[in-house]
């Protein structure tokens, strides 16, 4: 980012070029994206941009979900939450079952069924949060997606 630069060369700082930054961050996997959000405030703000997460969620989905999906997902909590709560665990667990060969778990192509399943689970998660916010639940209330959240003993 900064360095010993000669006077002749103009300094290049990627932080000045947010669109380039976004293009770079778009290609990261989930974990790296989260880590990058810890780098500095600017990166944190950018990483919050939901379109990054949207790209992350569905870039390997084939066929890609229709555009009508977006408002629903946004309403249910956004792509970042979708990724953290549903897509990441689903991909990693389904990925476990596939042939080894790909180290990067995000490279797996997943089908419409997988997408559908993730969305359904996401919706259930939203519904449960509704129940808890409505004063009915304790803070540590259960979640039906707990089976996704718990560490998997591989």
């Amino acid at each position: 980012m900064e360095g010993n630069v000669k006077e002749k060369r103009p300094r290049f700082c990627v932080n000045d070029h947010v669109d380039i930054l976004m293009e770079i961050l778009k290609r990261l996997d989930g974990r790296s994206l989260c880590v990058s959000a810890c780098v500095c405030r600017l990166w944190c703000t950018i990483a919050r941009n939901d379109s990054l997460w949207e790209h992350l969620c569905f870039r390997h989905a084939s066929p890609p979900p229709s555009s009508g999906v977006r408002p629903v997902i946004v309403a249910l909590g956004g792509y970042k939450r979708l990724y953290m709560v549903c897509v990441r665990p689903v991909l990693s667990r389904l990925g476990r079952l596939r042939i080894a060969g790909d180290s990067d778990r995000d490279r797996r192509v997943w089908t419409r069924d997988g997408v559908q399943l993730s969305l359904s689970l996401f919706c259930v998660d939203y519904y449960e949060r509704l129940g808890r916010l409505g004063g009915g639940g304790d803070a540590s209330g259960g979640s039906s997606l707990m089976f996704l959240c718990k560490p998997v003993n591989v």
Partner: protein
Amino acid sequence: MKRDHQETIGNKAESSSSSMDTGKGKSWFEDDQDAGGGMDELLAVLGYKIKSSDMADVAQKLEQLEMVLGSEDGISHLASDTVHYNPSDLSGWVQSMLSEFNNLPSTDFDSSILLSSNRDSLLGQPSAITSLDFSRNSQSKVFTDDSEYDLRAIPGVAAFPQQEFDRSNDRKRVKLTPIGSDTAPAPAVNSLQSPTASSTSTSSPQAMAVSGTLSGPTRPVVLMDSQETGVRLVHTLLACAKETQEENLELADALVKRIGLLAASQTGAMRKVATYFAEALARRIYKISPQDYCLDSSCLDTLEMHFYETCPYLKFAHFTANQAILEAFADASRVHVIDFGLKQGMQWPALMQALALRPGGPPAFRLTGIGPPQPDNTDALQQVGWKLAQLARTIGVEFQFRGFVANSLADLDAEMLGLLPPEVEAVAVNSVFELHRLLARPGGIDKVLGSIKAMRPKIVTVVEQEANHNSPVFLDRFTEALHYYSSLFDSLEGSGMIPRSQDLVMSELYLGRHICNVVACEGADRVERHEALAQWRTRLDSAGFDPVHLGSNAFKQASMLLALFAGGDGYRVEENNGCLMLGWHTRPLIATSAWRLAAGDSQQ
């Protein structure tokens, strides 16, 4: 070697790790047997040479010897006239010792019974003690016990040996204790008094011919090989159920206590299942009406939520039913779902989301939820409806909700629901674990099936437990339930997840309530009248419904869902003539099926 005989015998009864039959006993030792010329290796290390094949025999004789030595007379003889034998050839040594004792004129085993007070500790277990040959004992009473490891035991063991006393049965073993040990007087039913001395002497030689069964260590040990205890546990459970069925309540009571003891030596799923069944049996025996326990609906709802969270059964049910409904609603612009058991409405968010993302846009969605009256008069249905309405607003689906409170589904009529004609709205009827309750009252199920037909649904989805817990014979029901819930508990155990243990406990409590209902309740209270898919098929078929095949989408979704659960390899989705079944390993546990009105059925 003075010993407290009662304690010894009690402990021996508990500590006997006798094998099921000779075959098994030998195999236990075959494991120990390595090359060494057939000598048992472990004992060889200690300096004793015994052939592995002789082990059973030697052990038996050692017990006999112990009995003899336990009496004062034996000891005094030894003290006065000693010949020392080399014990390293253990079998020869034991043999010679025994023959010495048997020749003694002064050996007097005036033994009296015991065990009538300890009958419960001996039931269902082979006694580990053999008799001695003492032909002139005039006052002895004997206790006979059957080895229970084959199924003969189920009819036989609980039936007291009084009538079997003179049967020459070479598996019978006879137990003796010297007089002087404190024995409780035998209560009437289970008295083991021996008839007369003459029969004693006739039976004893037969008893001597007991074939080699493995006896346990002579030191009192409480824990045994838990696999064998597991088998013993199951047998005791079944024996107890049988006795309960035949109203031999004292005996059943004793067996129930025994189950508790045996269950303590198990771990994991078996222990829990046994505990729940024992409790349910106890309730049945003591006629404690478990109404509040089994039927309290609000409590059950909470438990069911935990069950929903920890294991895939309910999720499977919901997802597969939703898929069928979705496919049936493919082109409709107004849809109406009637849910026979709304509870927390966990099934509907997923359906609503799928409808919202439908290629042509979401239809107008109407939901009618039916539920039982709440004990605290809160309107639980409305609260659920409100939450669903919020969700619908969020995802942009037009939504209407109506709740019906009914004690039983049979109280409802199609007219009450205010249905629009089928050209206007497509109706789906959904029943998840609700239909079996109607079997508790005569005519209930027929009335409801008639109402369903009057609703003219496009599709009816039915999810039920895949087991027959509705047999009129209690023992059959019990056995079936034991196997079913064992598999279910196994799957909870084996799912390998680490949810907060509280959830697991709650799920088990939830299942425990069901167990209690199946075992302890009768008549109209017994609502958990599960029936197998084949039975439901017949019933729905004859009521005028045609099956609808659940498509491959449902199968794929279900398989994927199960793969997400950590114990995914244990769960299996099977397709059975268009119905989907979820099971644990080889045992199917719940089944989803879809139906529509039979073609040609007259419109009502």
